[in-house]
């Protein structure tokens, strides 16, 4: 067994960490993440130049990575600075474009000249793609899609949307829609970054697959792994901020870090963060195996619980300062708590684990 990253991955993670620290510090992030377009388009191009997008796709699909650990190192760095770039939607889009042989699209996204987003979930279908009601219709060779898509991460900043819709045969198909053809309503999320609600009404679409359910599930699991890794990066930083604050803040004539009640709480966070790191490693290792769904569900459940604990405890131990917008720690706490809501929360994942265990 060997828990060291390969040299290639260490290079990606080192150069990304340097780039984000220098060019995309959390102060810059807080300025741009809450106002349209909720990210910094110039920086997107620079990230592409660093090769970050290529790391998310396998070699035979046009990239140079694509394994679970490649995804994990990229998103862990994103989590450390709360990078609000729409990487999640592009990760899932890249996986699907790759799976369905759209090499020109893969190439354009890796080069940073095009962006995409995955439009799967709907107002009453947030976790299980079998519940979606958006419909695709075919007339000759031409397809259209109709329906309402919710929480399309990065949908506000995409050139194309990959839309999951039910085909006349009753399967879940995957359709590419040009962004200007859809009714896209972008908004900021409470923890920063952008998402969109999407209205589709007989919108012209290109059919990538008439039976894409398994591929979409796999792409969503890659997205869940990414969110988990992002959370671990954010937890590490927020724990350090909390430790520094406890050591620096004086009350009753001494640093509050000298109070054992607070020491133990920071220790508990440290234990949970190590557990979180481990479950992400487990899920990353299982991403391309038959155990993928179970491993990812376990990770997302544990991360949901750990993220909430770390976020809430960090705010509480900071006191009033932790409640302020001006203090970066509050933005880390928000991200760690809201990450649970994306792509299925702790209860959804628990249910998945229970079902897969019983199967």
């Amino acid at each position, binding site marked *: 067994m060997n828990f060291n990253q390969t040299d290639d991955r260490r290079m990606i993670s080192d150069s990304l960490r340097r780039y984000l620290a220098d060019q995309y510090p959390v102060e810059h992030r807080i300025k741009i993440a809450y106002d349209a377009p909720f990210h910094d388009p110039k920086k997107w191009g620079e990230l592409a130049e660093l090769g970050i997008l290529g790391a998310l796709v396998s070699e035979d699909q046009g990239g140079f990575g694509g394994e679970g650990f490649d995804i994990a190192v990229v998103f862990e760095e994103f989590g450390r600075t709360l990078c609000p770039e729409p990487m999640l939607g592009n990760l899932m889009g890249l996986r699907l474009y790759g799976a369905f042989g759209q090499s020109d699209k893969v190439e354009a996204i890796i080069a940073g000249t095009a962006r995409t987003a995955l439009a799967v979930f709907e107002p009453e279908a947030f976790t299980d793609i079998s519940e979606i009601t958006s419909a695709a219709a075919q007339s000759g060779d031409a397809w259209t899609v109709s329906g309402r898509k919710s929480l399309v991460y990065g949908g506000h900043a995409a050139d194309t949307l990959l839309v999951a819709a039910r085909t006349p045969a009753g399967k879940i198909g995957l359709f590419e829609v040009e962004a200007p053809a859809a009714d896209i309503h972008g908004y900021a999320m*409470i923890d920063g970054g952008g998402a969109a609600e999407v209205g589709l009404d007989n919108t012209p679409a290109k059919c990538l697959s008439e039976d894409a359910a398994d591929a979409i599930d796999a792409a969503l699991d890659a997205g869940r792994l990414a969110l988990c890794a992002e959370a671990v990066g954010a937890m590490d930083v927020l724990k350090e901020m909390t430790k520094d604050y406890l050591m620096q803040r004086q009350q009753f*004539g001494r640093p509050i870090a000298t109070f054992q009640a607070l020491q133990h709480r920071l220790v508990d966070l440290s234990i949970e963060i190590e557990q979180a790191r481990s479950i992400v490693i487990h899920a990353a290792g299982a991403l391309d195996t038959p155990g993928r769904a179970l491993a990812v569900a376990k990770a997302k459940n544990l991360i949901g619980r750990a993220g909430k604990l770390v976020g809430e405890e960090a*705010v509480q131990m900071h006191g009033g300062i932790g409640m*302020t917008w001006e203090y970066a720690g509050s933005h880390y706490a928000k991200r760690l708590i809201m990450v649970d809501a994306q792509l299925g929360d702790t209860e959804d994942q628990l249910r998945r684990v229970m079902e897969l265990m019983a199967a």
Partner: protein
Amino acid sequence: MDLNFTPEEEAFRAEVRSFLKDNLSEELATKVRNGEELGKADIEGWHATLQSRGWLAATWPVEYGGPGWNAVQRHIFDEECCMANAPRIVPFGLGMLGPVLIKFGTEKQKAEILPRILDGTDWWCQGYSEPGAGSDLASLKTRAVRDGDDYIINGQKTWTTLGQYADKIFCLVRTSTEGKRQEGISFVLVDIKTPGIEVRPIKLIEGGHEVNEVFFSDVRVPVSNLVGEENQGWTIAKFLLTHERTGIAGVGASTQALHELKALARKLKRRGKPLIEDPLFAARIAEAEIDLEALRMTNLRVLVDASGGAASNTIASMLKIKGTVIRQNLHDLTRRALGPAAAPFPMDALAGNLAVAPPEAAASAASYFNNRKLSIFGGSNEIQRNIIAKDIFGA
């Protein structure tokens, strides 16, 4: 043992309920229910409505214009107001300064200040915490130095809730650096328009403007604005902390939050069925209801035992800890009920025709984050544990 409210208490509840039905506008109640930020006019208007019925200053004796209620009546009033989605009464003048003046103020102070609190002429805010004095309040440094018939105040206060609307601020200031830290603190009333005062907003985690920093530079205040004796401020502050602590459990607010949560869980669908039929989520609501049921009974035990609602420090601290944890959990569950639809910024979510959450829940994530304050302010839950530990271990 008789766990029923008396017929008189039930009649009182009916009277409050019917008053609220007739006098609380649908528009205002909807704003409160949706968690929208209330403006100064909303709050002042509601205060005036209550004052017209003589119910604004719930804790004041009749001779000063209060309703003369006992602790159980105050509890019933609070519960009914919460369930009707009435705005919360802003406590700084009515719940804090008023009782302080009634206990420690001069006749002149009472005659001048109390009527202006009741009729809404003066909006008061609180100047206690400082950047370096939070949990350790006695370490406060804002100085008031005597100069003839004036004090000259220099320093900084923080976390001043709704200070942006205030006409006046009551402050704890240091008037002596001799002896024990607690013995050099005074309680002073300051007109916030006095030259040398600057109020700056603090933006909170969810983006709202609710608290402020207040800076004092060479602010001249007449010595007649002192409440009680010079250097008696700590006694007054402690009186405030122990006076009327039974409302601290927030049972009314939690009951209302649970009611809303259940309504939401019946309305929202998950996997094709109402969320309340999802066993994993329903179990969490049920646990919250169990915890609240016990708290309701703890709170009533205290109300009935404590003469006039002056609970012991330990019980008050227990109610504060448990009450805030339960309320925070309910806000958490409401946010979670929405799933990812809780994520949009509330104002963004409500704009346009593609809103993702029902309006009464659109602000649920913002409310959840904002209410992390509950376990921090008014003496953090850690400080409350210190108080209980002192009582248990006698140290």
